[in-house]
């Protein structure tokens, strides 16, 4: 089966706008991943690992950045599309849900209008039909009393409702893939679970692909089929969630999993690995994780370890991939 989305060797380079960096900064460096229909793929990493930038690069939403590599949506290269095709693909082919609904929704336009303008861009529905569709969509994402909520402004909704509204907007044109950038981070824990359940139900109902960007391993464990772990703008390892959680093949993943609290406790953030993520200015030709790694050997600093297929469906860029301990299955 052909993947809905195939990313090949994606790079994102920002010109040195900030005074902190001397030259151009490569924030994403050679990322590849696939998303199949009906599949949930987690893109995992600390802040600054390049995961959000990757998501925005897939839709060409970045300002003043150079994007390299290929982003194939159903075989068509998004990065080479002319503007009118790109507009059609956005929203209808791939739609996005952002982290902060408060910032992503226009504060001075009613929710209904923000759904309907997506419908007018992608469908031939007339005003009355758009309105009916908008009510259906709000109902589908679990907003009660939808017909009255159409006229509500974002600030009149609760945080969870705002996120539901943003999902409804993203769904409006019936996208085949949903790109979700930390969709639950801004929410209370109880609301987080509801939103994740909603996303999973939509994936199942509509057969969509879902690329879920998160720093939360708990979210990945609960929702994803496969996961791609990013470190410093590169893929550290990739594989099915069950495999990776059972037997990490990268020292970074290993450290991440160790920093998680025991099973059954609340989800937590990936903080307690000693040391800081590297800055992305001019990376040396070595594994970026070396300063924080417990498995370092001379090979790690000789050259940057390439991403290799270590077993079917598993890729790793770690020299110690076969020396990492398996984790006790729960």
């Amino acid at each position, binding site marked *: 089966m052909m993947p809905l989305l195939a990313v090949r060797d994606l790079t994102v380079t920002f010109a040195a706008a900030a005074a902190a960096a001397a030259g151009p900064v490569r924030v994403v460096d050679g990322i590849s991943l696939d998303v199949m229909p009906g599949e949930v793929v987690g893109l995992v990493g600390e802040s600054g690992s390049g995961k959000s930038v990757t998501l*925005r690069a897939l*839709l060409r*939403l970045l*300002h003043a950045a150079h994007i390299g590599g290929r982003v194939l949506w159903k075989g068509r290269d998004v990065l080479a599309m002319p503007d009118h095709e790109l*507009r*059609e*693909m*956005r*929203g*209808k082919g791939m*739609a*996005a849900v*952002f982290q*902060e609904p408060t*910032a*992503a*929704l*226009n*504060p*001075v*336009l*009613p929710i209904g209008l923000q759904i309907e*303008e*997506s419908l007018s*861009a*992608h469908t031939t529905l007339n005003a009355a039909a758009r309105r009916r569709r908008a009510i259906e969509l709000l109902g589908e994402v679990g907003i009660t009393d939808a017909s009255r909520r159409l006229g509500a*402004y974002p*600030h*009149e909704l609760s945080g969870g409702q705002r996120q539901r509204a*943003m999902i409804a*907007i*993203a769904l*409006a*044109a019936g996208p085949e893939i949903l790109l979700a950038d930390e969709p639950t981070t801004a929410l209370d824990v109880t609301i987080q679970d509801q939103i994740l359940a909603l996303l999973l139900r939509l994936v199942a109902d509509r057969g969509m692909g879902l690329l879920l960007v998160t720093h939360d391993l708990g979210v990945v464990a609960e929702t994803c089929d496969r996961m791609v772990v990013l470190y410093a703008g590169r893929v550290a390892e990739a594989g099915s969630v069950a495999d990776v959680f059972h037997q990490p093949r990268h020292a970074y993943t290993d450290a991440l999993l160790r920093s998680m609290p025991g099973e059954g406790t609340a989800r937590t953030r990936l903080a307690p690995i000693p040391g800081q993520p590297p800055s992305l200015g001019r990376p040396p030709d070595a594994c970026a994780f070396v300063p924080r790694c417990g498995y370092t050997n001379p090979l790690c600093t000789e050259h940057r370890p390439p991403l290799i297929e270590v077993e079917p469906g598993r890729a790793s860029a770690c020299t110690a991939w076969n020396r990492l301990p398996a984790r006790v299955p729960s």
Partner: protein
Amino acid sequence: MNRAGAIAGRIAQIVPTFFLIGLVVFVLARLLPGDAVSAMLGDRATDETVQRITHQLGLDRSILSQLVAFLAQAAQGRFGESLAFRVPVASLIVERLPVTLMLTGMATLIALCLALPLAFVAAMTANRWPDILIRTVFQVGLSSPVFFVGLVLLTIFAAGLHLFPVGGYGEGFGEHLYHLFLPALTLALSFSAVIMRTLRGSILAVLRAEFVDFARAKGLSSRVILLRHVLRSAAITTVTLVGLHIGSLLGGAVITESVFAVPGVGRLMVDSIFSRDYPVIQALTLILAVLVSLTFLATDLLHGWLDPRTGV
């Protein structure tokens, strides 16, 4: 949500504001050093005249009763008699205020026509040559005093090219428009510089806002994004800006009317200073402040209507 209540509350606030404006103007008049009446009338006034005026102005009563009388009179639109024109101050103002209102109205329109498109161009070409050119020109405009801009326009377009009259107001609406065009343009130039500068910044901020990225992610065209998402925010900024700067616009009108000999309240104010026509100065100061506070009120209400986040 009690929107109507909030609006009523905001409207009710205007009453104490009017009272305080009256108080300031009253205090100002009492600051007149020395004997106020002889200061007004000059050295040649007879004792009899001084006495008559003193009584006429109620200056022989207690301060408090003077204040009460002043406020009561002002509330009825009675400001006494002009010393220079020998007519009620109110009728002078009624005659001249429309001229100033038309001048500032035209200036606001011209300023918006100049500033809005240019602010968009500047924001969308940020830090490239159209932006730098626009900003440089407006920076110079911002540093140019109104009277000088007026004289330059007068020299070129009225005296040189004979396209416009050198001053006055004319008869009938068409002639008013014609006569007021150069003065309004003069006022508009510095005003548009203020609007352009702030609006450019606000449009730039909106263009970089997350909700614009999200709108792009929905597949909306740049035209829809610009006309719906960006313009709406720009309109909110503009309304606030125009409201906030109405005072400096009226101040500018004082100068412009003097340069172009426009018979509005601004010129009346300057003339009154030289003829020591204090009742007129007092009344104008009060009327113009009331005008500003009414504009602030209108701005708040309009802003509330445009921006759903505000309470009013």
